[in-house]
């Protein structure tokens, strides 16, 4: 998938205002790093090296430091992902309730095929994640910010149709 990166600054207008509100809370600028990365990801869909450099500039950090933090946390995308980013829990409690089958069905029916890969139409990226914290509602699946409980193999076709 070829990507044209938006080279305009992220932190302008309303996004900058949102960041400034966070900066007002804490005694250090650095404490606004995770919130700043969330804001940037919401705007651009992922965190590019260029965005990391901008975040570093705005918060008075080095780009290398920002990259070290970005790479520690699993939810910041260091590459563009599909329009629908799907996270499937396969940790033990969900695993014994059929999570691996749900993952397989999602990979097949979205056309993403391999975990972490994006479908050729650019619509879907499906990944396997560790515990989503909803073990009594196996299998939980996150589609972007929609947290969907109790997904079974049988429910996958309807789920895929809903977002298609």
């Amino acid at each position: 998938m070829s990507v044209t990166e938006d080279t305009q600054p992220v932190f302008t207008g309303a996004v900058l205002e949102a960041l400034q509100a966070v900066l007002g809370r804490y005694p250090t600028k650095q404490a606004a790093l995770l919130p700043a990365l969330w804001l940037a990801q919401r705007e651009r869909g992922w965190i590019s090296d260029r965005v990391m450099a901008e975040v570093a500039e705005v918060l008075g950090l080095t780009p290398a430091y920002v990259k070290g933090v970005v790479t520690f946390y699993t939810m910041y995308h260091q590459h563009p992902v599909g329009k629908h980013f799907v996270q499937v829990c396969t940790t033990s409690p969900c695993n014994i309730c059929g999570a691996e089958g749900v993952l397989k069905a999602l990979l097949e029916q979205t056309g993403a095929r391999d975990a972490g890969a994006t479908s050729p139409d650019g619509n879907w990226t499906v990944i396997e994640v560790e515990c989503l914290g909803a073990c009594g509602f196996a299998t939980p699946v996150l589609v972007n910010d929609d947290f969907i409980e109790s997904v079974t193999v049988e429910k996958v076709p309807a789920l895929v149709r809903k977002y298609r």
Partner: protein
Amino acid sequence: MGFPHQPHPKETVVLSQYFGDPDARTYKGWVKRGGYEALRNALATAPAAVVEQVKESGLRGRGGAGFPTGLKWSFMPKAKTRPHYVCVNADESEPGTFKDREIMRWTPHALLEGAAIAAHAIQAEVVVIYIRGEFTEPWAITEKALAEADAAGVFGTIKVYLHRGAGAYICGEETALMNSIEGKRGNPRIKPPFPAVAGLFGMPTTINNVETLAAVPHILNRGAAWYRGLSLSNPQSTGTKLFSVCGHVQRPGNYEVTLGFPLKDLLYDLCGGPLPGRTLKACIPGGSSVPILTREETEACLLDYEGVVASGSMLGSGGVIVFDDSTDMVYQIMRLARFYAHESCAQCTQCREGTAWTTKILERILAGQGKTEDLDLLLDLSENMTGKTICVLSDSCAAPIVSGIKKFRGEFDAYLAGARSPVPVG
């Protein structure tokens, strides 16, 4: 109540009374149910007296360690010379645990009220609630509740902020959580100094779990003696606790019982027992970081801090994972080891290497390529992963491995002897 199921008569409903009731999420709805009275009264009481009440109640931390809450609060400096902080650990990520999520989804004001009471008790001006990044729904609901409570001015001079995690189990470790708020990688810190001396931004800090704080308004409203009286087996474990039950039971969900409740009754009566035609094989009673219990141990276990230890495990977070006779224990122990390998922050060698190598060895046993000495090697590695690192993540990886080999050795031996078909591990 047994959310998402009907309440069971054997439950003691305190924290979960309004689970499933959307009106309780609103500020007006919460006030109508007696909400924020405890905070109003607390703000008119001397901080030390509030700490004393919580001490008297016997409340212990519900996040996993079970440390007495009032005692923790009393460690904060009495003389106020620097800013004080309250951190709320809402990074619920322990496999098997999903109770804080329900508290935030249905009774966010209980958490906000408890957190503000804690802030008053330890003389903090700021509360930071750290919510795991994947909890999109609890975040949205708590954010809305906070905006409403702020607009009503109930917190006085106390500021309450939400801070979003970004995918890292280790940030549920208290000092890793503080580093994460500070905009750092979530590496746990060496202790001492403990947070009451140098916590968030190096300032005196108290960190409590969501469920712990949600219990505080009830204690202030109904009295420490009432809470202390909620105890079935021993006076060191008081109050009610939410148990998240998942895996192979008929009605998984959150159930609230008085501490000391029999695990057998929780699983067979409240949760409806094993799935049709199945029998219980094993149970992890306190989140994936604690030792596995056999069926016999499970059926004799009392759910309080000391009772679960006597049964050979720990109460932990109260995340109960149930495995029936269809379960391949070797495969599930590998999945748990893989979880810890994925979540290791990698600062300590024993953890970084130990979690990765135990996972690889378990994978090779499952693939039919195990060697006879592999079980001893796993136990040796586990020994080196226990009690030797900055935090307990590697101990947590070792717990299911050691208890699994000890209690379900036959299943490991079957793979090693080629008596069981190899399992593809992806």
